[in-house]
């Protein structure tokens, strides 16, 4: 007899099955979206072809992707780094704004040569992001306050702060832009086309963090704290110290993303500048399964999805449709990821 079939959860997912689940999720989501588009009276294959040719068919398309991928890799890295130590940083959005805010303060009000201002802006962005996560970090480390909530709540504070300064005290009074600050005095130089030096910085940082976490004693201890805090404590590892350091690092990386975005891409501070990069960073990190090296690839995938959305908007689809499709893809991906841990086994009777 064959016996009955049963689902068994495996301790780890087979890489091939995991990849297949990802692809299946993407395909199902695109088919459903395609049916929706067809019902709305558009040709999904033609739209798909346009997206591909506009993204990869020209240097301009690739440059657009390159610009988008910088903040996504960095905010994804920020969240992934937090996960390594067992902390959920949902506040990358706020730290992004805080970094942008601090860097703008330097760019607007500090006189000096270009290289000096850029260096100061860099430092300001990093410090701004770290300061923004400081209170949630200390609250988690000393009072065990859930950082999921505290980091999230500070997002709204940072978002509104940036709205306030860019439409209020710091607004451009020359009449060129009403709801933004004047252009900053220093720009991150271009690396390739319109892609600035943030691109190699973001990838380099992700690789560096991955190497340090994988091969240093510090990285080993951090990973141990993340996977089992009690065991780490028993082994004499300073759990609290690692938690604080890594969470501050996470905020600093998100702040750097904000600094690079204003100094490299937008060149002035304005409300809504983050484009939800902070929240998208959470998805980038989860898609990479918390791997710092993986965020480079999942960041690229997310950049492609976002860029496809921008292209689709020029083809008559609205932002909200694109948003819904993105959500659907991620929803199915989350399910597919979990299902890849299961396998069908045959029970002998």
């Amino acid at each position: 007899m064959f016996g009955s079939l049963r689902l068994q959860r495996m301790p780890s997912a087979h890489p091939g099955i995991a990849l297949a689940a990802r692809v299946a999720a993407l395909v199902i989501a695109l088919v459903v979206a395609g049916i929706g588009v067809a019902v709305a009276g558009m040709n999904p294959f033609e739209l798909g072809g346009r997206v591909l040719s506009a993204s990869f068919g020209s240097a301009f398309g690739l440059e657009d992707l390159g610009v988008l991928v910088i903040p996504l890799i960095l905010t994804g890295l920020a969240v992934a780094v937090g996960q390594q130590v067992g902390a959920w940083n949902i506040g990358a959005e706020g730290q992004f704004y805080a970094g942008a805010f601090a860097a703008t303060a330097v760019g607007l009000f500090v006189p000096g040569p270009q290289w000096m201002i850029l260096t100061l802006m860099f430092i300001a962005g990093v410090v701004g992001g770290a300061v923004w996560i400081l209170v949630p970090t200390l609250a988690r480390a000393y009072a065990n306050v859930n950082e999921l909530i505290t980091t999230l709540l500070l997002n709204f504070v940072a978002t509104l702060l940036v709205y306030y300064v860019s439409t209020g005290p710091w607004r451009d009074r020359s009449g060129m832009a009403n709801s933004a600050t004047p252009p900053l005095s220093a720009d991150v130089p271009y690396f390739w086309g319109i892609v600035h030096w943030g691109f190699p910085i973001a990838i380099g940082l992700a690789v560096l963090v991955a190497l340090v976490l994988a091969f240093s004693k510090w990285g080993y201890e951090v990973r141990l704290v993340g996977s089992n805090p009690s065991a780490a404590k028993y082994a004499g590892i300073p759990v609290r110290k690692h938690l604080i350091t890594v969470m501050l690092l996470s905020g600093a990386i998100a702040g750097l993303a904000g600094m690079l975005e204003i100094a490299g891409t937008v060149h002035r501070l304005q409300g809504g500048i983050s484009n939800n990069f902070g929240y998208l960073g959470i998805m980038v990190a989860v898609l990479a399964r918390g791997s710092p090296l993986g965020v480079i690839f999942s960041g690229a995938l997310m950049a492609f999805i976002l860029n496809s959305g921008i292209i689709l908007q020029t083809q008559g689809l609205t932002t909200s449709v694109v948003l819904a499709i993105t959500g659907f893809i991620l929803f199915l991906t989350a399910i597919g990821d979990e299902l890849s841990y299961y396998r069908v086994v045959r029970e002998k009777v």
Partner: protein
Amino acid sequence: MDILTGLLTTAFLAGGVLALAALGEVLAERVGVVNLGVEGLMAMGAITGIATVTSVPSPMLGFLAALVVGALFGMLFAAATVLLRANQVLCGLALTLMGTGLASTIGRNYSGMPAPVTFEPVLALLSRNFGMLEKAQVIAAPPSAMLPYCSGQPQLIASGEW
């Protein structure tokens, strides 16, 4: 209407909505699920409500329809996170994107349109039914008038006898 009156009115109106959303979230947290998709559920409920009362002028029907749609999306979330045990944070954020995206897609035709029918303000309802009309000034009442509101006896405030 001085500044304080306006401020308090807004606080009461916005606070009620937040409290409802928070109540939903608390229920989920009670069973150990973090539902970051509340934003999406709210958006879907809002568009369902407005779409329903636009076609059928009954606020109660809009209310019920919004409940049903919210429950349906909640079921989708529960199926993914509880039955299949998919990542709660990712599913929640995905639900927020899906909900807000879908709601604003459907809602494009309704945007900027005032609702044809609404629920009667609580105060008007109370005054008509209990004959406490003229002096009913909830918000303009002194701070002590806020206490019964907190203790769940709004009809006392409506009397305006403070």
